[in-house]
Structure formats: C-alpha cells, structure tokens
C-alpha cells in the first residue's frame, strides 16, 4: 500500500470512528465530547464558530488520557486558558474574546504504552533532556475526520496536543505551519508546561502565528548561522522544480542560494538574516530595522527587532531592550494585528527580496535556456504569501540602419533600451538535503529541526521519526532526506543573444501591495 492509500484508509477509519462516537455539539454541556470557550470564558456562539477570519480556533487534543480522565482533561484545558491570559500586549490577552479554545475529548492508551493517541511519546531529545514527539500526519488526519463527520465549521488556527504527564525537564515544541506546509501548525505541551503562561503562549505562537524563536541556544552564542551555508552545495532541487533540477553545487557562483536564508528568512516575518529586512524601496513603507542578533537558535547572523518578547531569551545579549518578556516586539505585533484586526490583510509589501542569479557570465554549458532566480523571504509567509512576481528583462537592443559617410554606406545601429515584462505566479518549490551529507553538522541541524517541530521525514512510503533517534542510529538505519520549503523560484527567460548583456529585476505582489523593484542585475550569455 502506498503512502497516499494509507492516508486515505486512516481517514476513512477515523471518520467512521468519530461518526459512531459523535455527539451533538454542546458548548456548555459538561459531558460534551467537543466544547468551545472563548478566551474570556464565554461559550462560543455559532456566529463566532462560523467566522474563522475574525475568530481564531485553537483546537486542543488530549493524548495519554484514559477514558475516566475526562474531567482532568477539561480542567487542564481551563487551567491553560486561564494561565494564558496575562496582562500584557500578548495576543492571548489583547484578543481574548477572539480566541476560541475548542476541546475535543479523545481518550486513549497511556503515553508509556507506545500506543497513545497520535503515536505521542516522551522521547529522549537528541540534545536536551526529553522531548514531546508524535505523528503529525495522524493529528492532521484526525482534524480532517472531525471536520468531515462532526463539525464542518472546524478551521483550526492552531492545534495543541496536551500530554497527560507532569514530568519536568521536558522540552515542549511546535511546528510552524509554513515549515510543515499546512494551514495550521501543531504545538505539543505537557501538563507541567501549563503551570505558567509562557510555554503555552510561546508554543501556540509557533503553531498559529508562525513565529520562530528569537533566542540563542546554549553553546551557539558565538556561532554564525552562515556556517550552515557550507551545506548549500550538498542540497538538491526536488521534483517541484521540473526541468530545472540541477545539483546546486554545479550552479553556485552563477546563482547564490543559502541554507541560512532557507532556515531564517523564510516566511516568519519577524526574523531575518539581515538588520535591514526591507531590501527594496516600496511606496508608503517605512523600512524596518532589526537591531539585535539572535534567532533560529544562532547567536550570530540572524536578526530581530528590538523589544523584549515571548519568543526571545536572555542568553547572549545584555541590551535592556533585548531578551525575554511576556510581550511582543513591534514586528511581532504587526503580524498579530494583521491576524486579529485586519482580517489577515497585509500591512506591508513583500519587500524582503533579492536577485539570486545568474550573476556574471551564463556559460553555454549550463544550457540554452536562461533561468533567473528570485529570492523572496515572504514566498512561504503564512499570512501574506507572495501571489506573483513581475519580472523584467532589459537589454540594449540594436536598431540597425544604413549609415552613410561620403559615398560609403555601412551598417550602423542605435542602442535602444528595451524591457520585456512577465507576471509569474508564485509556485511551491522545495529543496532536499540528505542527512548523510551533513558531516559534522548533523547534530546541529537535527537540533534546529526538532526545535522547529519538523519531526518526521518522508522515507519511502513511511516516515522517519527524526527526533526519536540518535544521529548514529539514523545513519545506520536510513538515509533520510530533509526537505525544506524553498524561498527561491526560477523563471525561464527566452534571452537568446550570445555575448549580450541582459539586465533583470523583479518585484512581488501579495494581493494587497506590490513591492518596489530590486536593483538591476546583469548576466552575459557566453560561449
């Protein structure tokens, strides 16, 4: 049975199971299988549940809770909601009444049985103490099945899985939706984690707001994310690139792709690999400034906005306005306001762009067709993905005529600046990296991915649980391929003249704003 069939089978079984066990939705019913309370404690109305643009649904699943622990699960959900309301500018407080917490009762075997809901486990973390792991596909299939059988209005903004464990020293984690290429992310927390407000708010910010960490991992204070760029030459374009499937090593120098950009400038909207994320000039847009380094666990080479906040930590910076606090900084607040006040409509253009090649000579050995490459940090932005690119190619066209000097007639030309333009839709592109090719960086990359909640890697028809195995076990058993959504996209250009200098630039359209143009880059087709 292939992967797709397995998924379909799992979905049918789940729909049948949930149909048999479904009860009429009764938000206030103390015995309901599914219930909903807004952040301020009121029962969700039908209007609210049917307006996911305005009201954000946080779906909470139990795992490891036995059939007689229904009350415990409900109480724990209430406790979590209560603790998430901290007087601050945090989304969980400011937009209390717009957050709909939906509990869904799903009893199951204990966590240590190996058969808990969604294959959830408390595993030994490859780097730190212990980690919460599960099968994310099973969570997604369950959401689909509930939507199909019980609640067609279900449209999760984020999903939280609450583990029935009070074990301490367990690292909660969450997958931002753009990294798992899904409409919502999945947060994993245990009961101990909800004793205070931080973990639930932080992890839901990953899973729903698509935020990434701004803190620095211990030991990486002086490590620059650019060291990962050594791995770029080991990466491959996956099948989404169609005919443009070259080994990246063969085109570096003509194109410049960077693993650092793939990890830290790829859809989060509040962390970048530069202090000046707005790379082009756009109308009515004040350029942003990310004053401090730190993000995606690296102490150097990643940047974020000033202001203590919930995604940051106190390691690696002494600045008074950099570090941890139960608050958002300005760039996070802009995203929060976009989600809760502006119906998701962007406040800014997708201006985090640059030309990624070709640069210089375009040798004929690369092929007859020319492709320009765009880099767009918002291509995979969860809230304002780029819809299309306007690409311009320019050159000095030779308009020939007959010139005359005394009796002599000879061909001459006038150079006329000519520009061709095309709109190209933004398309999904992914980049593969074999873990065996990570050399000494395997553990580092694993750490980054596990903290990002990227826990499962496709392997044939199944999945490898990346965060439940050591690097050595993994290498002995499998050669997993890590797949990343790509912030790059190629555009074919019918430039055909040899030894002619072509210019190119582009801008983005996110449906609300067009960005400014990049600078003109040039390449020459050489023999």
């Amino acid at each position: 049975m292939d992967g797709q069939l397995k998924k379909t089978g799992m979905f049918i079984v789940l729909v049948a199971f949930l149909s048999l066990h479904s009860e009429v939705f009764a938000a206030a019913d103390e015995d309901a299988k599914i219930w909903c309370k807004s952040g301020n404690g009121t029962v969700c109305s039908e209007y609210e549940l049917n307006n996911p643009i305005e009201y954000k649904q946080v779906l909470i699943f139990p795992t490891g809770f036995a059939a007689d622990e229904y009350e415990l699960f409900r109480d724990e959900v209430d406790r979590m909601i209560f603790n998430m309301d901290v007087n601050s500018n945090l989304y969980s407080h400011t937009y209390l009444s717009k957050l709909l917490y939906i509990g869904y009762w799903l009893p199951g075997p204990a966590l240590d049985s190996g058969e808990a809901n969604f294959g959830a486990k408390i595993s030994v973390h490859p780097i730190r103490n212990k980690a919460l792991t599960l099968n994310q596909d099973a969570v997604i299939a369950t959401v689909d099945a509930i939507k199909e059988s019980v609640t067609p209005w279900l449209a999760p903004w984020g999903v939280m899985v609450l583990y029935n464990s009070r074990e301490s020293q367990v690292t909660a984690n969450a997958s931002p939706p753009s990294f798992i290429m899904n409409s919502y992310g999945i947060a994993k927390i245990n009961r101990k984690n909800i004793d205070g407000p931080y973990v639930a708010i932080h992890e839901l910010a990953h899973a729903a707001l698509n935020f990434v960490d701004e803190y620095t991992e211990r030991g990486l204070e002086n490590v620059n994310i650019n060291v990962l760029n050594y791995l770029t030459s080991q990466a491959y374009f996956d099948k989404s690139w169609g005919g443009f499937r070259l080994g990246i090593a063969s085109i570096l120098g003509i194109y410049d792709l960077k693993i650092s950009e793939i990890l830290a400038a790829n859809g989060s909207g509040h962390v970048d690999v530069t202090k000046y994320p707005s790379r082009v000039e756009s109308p009515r847009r004040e350029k942003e400034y990310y004053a401090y380094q730190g993000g995606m666990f690296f102490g150097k080479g990643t940047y974020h906005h000033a202001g203590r906040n919930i995604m940051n930590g106190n390691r690696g910076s002494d600045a008074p306005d950099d570090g941890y606090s139960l608050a958002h900084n300005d760039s996070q607040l802009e995203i929060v306001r976009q989600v809760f006040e502006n119906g998701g409509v962007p406040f800014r253009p997708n201006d985090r762009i640059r030309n990624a090649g070709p640069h210089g000579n375009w040798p004929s050995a690369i092929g007859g067709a020319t492709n320009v490459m765009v880099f767009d940090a918002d291509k995979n932005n969860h809230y304002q993905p780029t819809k299309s690119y306007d690409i311009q190619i320019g050159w000095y066209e030779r308009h020939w005529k007959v010139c005359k000097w005394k009796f002599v007639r000879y061909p001459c030309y006038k150079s006329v600046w000519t520009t061709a333009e095309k709109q190209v839709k933004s398309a999904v592109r992914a980049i593969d990296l074999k873990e065996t090719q990570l050399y000494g960086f395997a553990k580092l990359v694993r750490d980054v991915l596990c903290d990002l909640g990227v826990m499962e890697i496709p392997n044939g028809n199944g999945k490898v649980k990346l965060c439940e195995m050591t690097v050595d076990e993994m290498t002995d058993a499998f050669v997993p391929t890590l797949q990343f959504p790509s912030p790059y996209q190629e555009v074919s250009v019918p430039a055909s003249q040899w030894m002619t200098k072509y210019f190119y630039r582009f801008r983005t359209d996110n449906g609300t704003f067009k960005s400014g143009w990049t600078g003109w880059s040039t390449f020459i087709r050489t023999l």
Partner: protein
Amino acid sequence: MTRSRALLIALVLSLFSVYLLLSDSGTEKASARRAVPATAQSTATGREKKHQQVVKLVEKKNQEIREERKRFEREGWSFVETAPPDHDVIELNPNALSEKERYFQVQLQTTTFWGEELAKVKQIVLKARSPKTRFVAIESLGRSEEPAAQAHLIDLYRLVSKIEEKQQILGLLRPKSLDDFVGSFLFSEIENVSQHQLLREQASVLVVSVALMQTGSEDVPDSIKARVPEDWHEKFDDIWKNLRRK
C-alpha cells in the same frame, strides 16, 4: 553591451566598408585600362551592389531583433517602457555615492557583485558614512561565491575599526580548507593575543566548524592544535567539544 564594445564594432564595420570601397576603386582602376565608359558603369553597379549588401545585412539584423521580440511575446512577455538602468548605481560609481546613497543600498542588498565590481563594493564600505550602507555592502561581499570577495573581506577586516563590523566580516568568511588563505587568516587571528577576545573566539568557532566538517573527530586533531597558541588551547578545546556535542 558596453560603450567601448559598441565603438569597437562600429570601427570594425567602418574599416570593412572602407575596404569594400577600396576594392571597388581597385576594380575601377583595373577596368580603366580597358574601357572608360565600361568602368564608370561597373563602378556604379559595384556601389549599388555593395549598397544592397549593406541593406540586406541591416534587414537581416533587424529581422533577428524582430524574431527575438516574437520569441518573448510567444512566451507571455510583453514589452514595456522603463527608464534605462542608472549606470552610476549598477556600476557603483563611488563619486555618486552621496547623491544616490539610497539607490546604492537597494543595489547592494538585492544584487550580487562579481569580478571587478567587488573592489568597488569594498570602496563603498570604506567611503560610506551611513552604517546601513556599510553593513549592506559588507553583506553583499559575503554573499558572493567568488574567492576574490573573501580576499576583499579580509582586507576590510584589517581596515575597519569597529568591532561590530569586524564581527560581521568574520561571520561571512568561508574558508574552503584550513590551509587556504582564509583559513590561514583565521589562524592568524586566533594567534593574535592582543586581539579582542570576542574576535578570537569567533575565528575559533569558524575554524572548528570547518575542521569538524572535514574530520568529525571527537578531540582536536594534533595538526590543528599545533596551529593554536598555548594560551588559547583550553578555550579552543571548549569550543570544539561544544560544537562537537551540537
């Protein structure tokens, strides 16, 4: 096409035309010895013939242009009016920096430079007063895959005085091996006992990263340890163990 190349082609074509003219004259002279009226006629015919050749050539060239335009149109491109690129900006003319600095910043952030342009990027770092321009220019050199860009970064490291800029430069260095010029430079920084501790540490982190990629060894190999000064052995060991654990 650069202006100099256009001039060169125009010169070649002019010389070719002169050659054709001289060839005609030669024919004229040769024919004059036989019959004067026939010569005048053949000269006129020859000129006309050459003229037609030129017309044909011009038509052929323009046809090629029309075909290229059609190819673009067939693939969904349309032709639009735009201002030609500002060559001061795309060629990073240092004399235009103060007047066009914001455009320089966009150019530095959104394009990658190569060849001779890399030296101009370095000049911009040294000339610009705006911290942003300096930052994005250094960043631009770091993005380039050309070895020359790494050499310019090392030059800049020695020329800039701010520790933040030195740190930024160190973060953009990519030795291909520990024995190439970038690797040697990093070891020289580690050896420099008067250097700021942060910079020695950052250089060490980079050396260790490259060494780990190459060796994956549990402990610092002797060949590398021999290049690290004694006062730094303990620190270097710590960095190695920490990154190895990672």
